């Protein structure tokens, strides 16, 4: 066998081919603005948007205050609303203008104190207040309702203490909140975002770059070289795995240092579970690109089957427990769901093995299935 032939067919050849493919892919990533945008710009934008902009908390909620008969008691109550950071009370002369403000969306609720408020407050039955809420966003409305009750209760308690009387309460509820004691939505949104970002890199970007090779005719040229299909797939996996882990590291760093999200679990658990999730996402991406050979279709498929579920069906924003049973079953097919559970536990609770282990196993299973399927489906043929 001539030396060159030996070189080409031996292990050295496989190593050389793989090195060539990986180097090519990295050069392309560096030179392609759209890859850089998806891998680095989009994570930063999403994190900043969710970290600073979007918040599921109610803060400075505009609330119309209609006081029919102002006096010391009503002034105290209105003051109590103003003293919390949750509300921004706006005094309105009558119900009519308050309703108009509500219709126009200038206020999210109306607190109505009737003319007999003070008189009844001092009587045995106690005084009612009327609360009208904009219920379009039901979650938000419930949140405000809770806060209003909180303010109202606190004001009554404080008033009673000042007067030296005890408030007649049947049950004394003393709530304590675990894991996210400050109710900061950022603390669970930012870890969830890491899932979205890694889905983008793992599935969307991978599917797009494979489809691009088909579109530009370079895949055809690759296929007629002595390269194995296995090597082409690994040659795609390695660069995007590195890129995905890079995106993960960037997001974790931003979460911890910029947004002060606590990281209570260990870093190695986070890294390992991220690697498992990325395996599943990359497998999905490759599988899509084997079916769809143009960037438009591949992009749409990736968004519908991976990116949107990562947002909606992962438990990242919407609680899976409160979804209908059928939808809950569907979420079990989404790798993102398991990773969200791991991330939220890892960040907010710590290394809770009974939660981490089953989710990690599920991710591993999905990674094996998707990667195995792409290996089986990928043929060194044009059909």
């Amino acid at each position: 066998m001539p030396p060159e032939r030996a070189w080409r067919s031996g292990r050295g050849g496989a190593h050389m081919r793989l090195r060539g493919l990986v180097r090519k892919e990295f050069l392309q990533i560096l030179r392609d603005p759209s890859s850089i945008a998806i891998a680095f710009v989009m994570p930063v934008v999403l994190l900043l948007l969710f970290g600073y902009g979007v918040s599921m908390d109610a803060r400075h909620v505009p609330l119309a205050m209609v006081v029919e008969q102002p006096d010391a008691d009503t002034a105290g109550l209105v003051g109590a609303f103003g003293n919390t950071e949750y509300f921004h009370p706006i005094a309105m002369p009558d119900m009519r203008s308050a309703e108009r403000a509500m219709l126009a969306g200038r206020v999210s609720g109306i607190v109505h104190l009737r003319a007999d408020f003070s008189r009844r407050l001092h009587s045995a039955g106690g005084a009612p207040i009327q609360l009208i809420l904009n219920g379009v966003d039901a979650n938000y409305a419930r949140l405000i309702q809770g806060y209003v009750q909180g303010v109202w209760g606190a004001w009554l308690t404080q008033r009673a203490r000042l007067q030296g009387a005890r408030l007649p309460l049947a049950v004394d509820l003393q709530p304590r909140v675990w894991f996210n004691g400050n109710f900061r939505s950022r603390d669970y949104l930012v870890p969830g975002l890491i899932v979205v970002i890694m889905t983008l890199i793992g599935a969307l970007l991978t599917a797009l770059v494979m489809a691009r090779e088909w579109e530009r005719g370079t895949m055809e040229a690759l296929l007629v070289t002595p390269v194995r299909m296995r090597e082409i797939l690994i040659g795609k996996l390695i660069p995007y795995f590195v890129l995905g882990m890079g995106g993960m590291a960037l997001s974790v760093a931003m979460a911890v240092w910029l947004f002060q999200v606590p990281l209570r679990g260990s870093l190695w658990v986070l890294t390992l579970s991220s690697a498992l999730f990325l395996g599943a996402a990359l497998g999905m991406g490759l599988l899509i690109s084997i079916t769809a050979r143009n960037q438009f279709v591949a992009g749409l498929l990736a968004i519908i089957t991976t990116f949107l579920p990562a947002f909606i069906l992962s438990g990242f924003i919407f609680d899976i427990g409160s979804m209908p049973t059928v939808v809950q079953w569907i979420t079990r097919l989404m790798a993102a769901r398991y990773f969200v559970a791991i991330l939220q536990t890892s960040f907010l609770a710590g290394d809770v093995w009974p939660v981490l282990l089953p989710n990690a196993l599920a991710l591993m299973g999905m990674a094996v299935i998707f990667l195995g399927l792409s290996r089986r489906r990928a043929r060194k043929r044009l059909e």
Partner: protein
Amino acid sequence: MIVAAAAPAPASGTDLVLRLSGVDKRFGKPPHVVQALHGVDLEVRRGRVTGLIGPDGAGKTTLMRIASGLLTPERGAVQALGFDAARQSLQVQSRVGYMPQRFGLYEDLSVQENLDLYADLQGVAPTARAPRYRELMHMTGLASFTRRLAGRLSGGMKQKLGLACTLVHPPELLLLDEPTVGVDPVSRRELWQIVYRLVREQSMTVLLSTAYLDEAERCAEVILLHEGRVLGHGAPGDFSQPLTGRSFRVTAPDIGKRALQARLGTKPGVVDAVIQGEHVRVVLDAGTAQHPNALPRDLPGATIKPVPPRFEDAFVTMIRGDRPGRPVEVPAMTGAANTDGTVIQVRHLDRRFGDFYAVRDLSFDVRRGEVFGLLGANGAGKSTTFRMLCGLLPASGGRLSVAGVDLRTASATARARIGYMSQKFSLYGNLSVHQNLRFFASAYGLTGRSHRQRIDAALTGFELEGYRDTESQTLPLGYKQRLALACALLHQPDILFLDEPTSGVDPLARREFWARIGALAEGGVTVLVTTHFMEEAEYCDRMAIMAAGRILALGTPEQIKARARGAAKPEPGEETTMEDAFIALIEAAKRQETQTDAA
């Protein structure tokens, strides 16, 4: 049918590099099955250039892909270099070099990085690389461009880089899929020189596919493919030789060349009649060719002269049989009987993209009823010019007017005088022929009786009745082209823009297409057409040859050829083709450039 294919004497086992026997290949699922290859048998022998020749859609690319193991045939056997291409594709692939139609280059990688990638994939030992690269870069003339991104290379340079990448490990069999399509004639000639050198110095075996029939004569052996079947196999001379004494050139200065062609084309005994410069080239059937002088007897002032047959004569005769060409009926186009004069006027037109001039200082006029051609390779600036004329792209500088107005700012009435047919035909693939016509008729604002009448006229005039309810995406390419032209003519425009209208259609459809265009021009329609088929320039009344955004030459085909003859060394007796003229002009321009640089 002529059997040129007294197939070459059966080659001995070692001499055979590629053999296909009884290969069938289908694509798609019923009811949209396309049979790409029908029982193809062929042999490619060692150490020579074999040309796989046929129009687009003949099955050339499918055949190449089957030979390299990228596709598996439904039936039949494929032996490449002693291996079964379907089952042992990896062995085949480590021994063949295959350049796909789009060259397979990574445009965001530099020349050197592309070479490195393919050297890695082909397993070229690190020590062997430096001398190999040097050799390839020298051969392709890319040595000073190794750091440039492949996407920034010209079409001709991309083609050479693609070739260098497939040659990085010297293959035993080189498969080139339409390497010369869309590349300028100079690069095309250089590619052929490289191919000859590979065969001569390294006794490489080359199978090269092309849609340009005139390239047949450059091959040692030719396999003629048409509609998935092998029509013939032999030396190029074997094909044209039987036609010796049947090809003639008719000249009649008193009759216009189009009228002459139209009259000759319908005469009994004439198999083929095409315009060639100021003459009409005819192929006669065997009987008529005995008495050629009888042919132009009723044509005043006509003379007839025998010429040597060429490959295309043979091809047309083979697929047409000895049936004469049918006369083409052109639906009456009421080219508004305006006064003669200039219809399109272009003065010092520039178009910049960033600091790159796609079109620079362009000036020309097109007169009423004229067929004006813009000729050039991909990237010469034809399409940019075209888009500016149609008002789809603003000019960066200069003036232009079409029918007296700038179409970018023109009213709908001015635009209604324009018909436009794009390269991709712009048809709705999932609508039927009739639905496409109806849609375009409405888009042009035709209503009521005229709407119906124009559609009926188009269906009959373009012989599309048989396909009335066929989805247009399933039409044969020639019919798609007819339909696209019919759509562009529905509103009876008096100016017609045609962007690469004939790319991909077979020579017969092309003849028919040009006959229609000729008839339209006779009827007063002004036609502006772009093409990269040098030979099609012969159909134009006047033309501009473009290269790198500038006009190299402007005039009638004869004038341009004469100018080129002046520029090149005149070779008496040799007929100058448009391609020779193009190459001479480009080289003259280059010489001038270097002289100016030196001065």
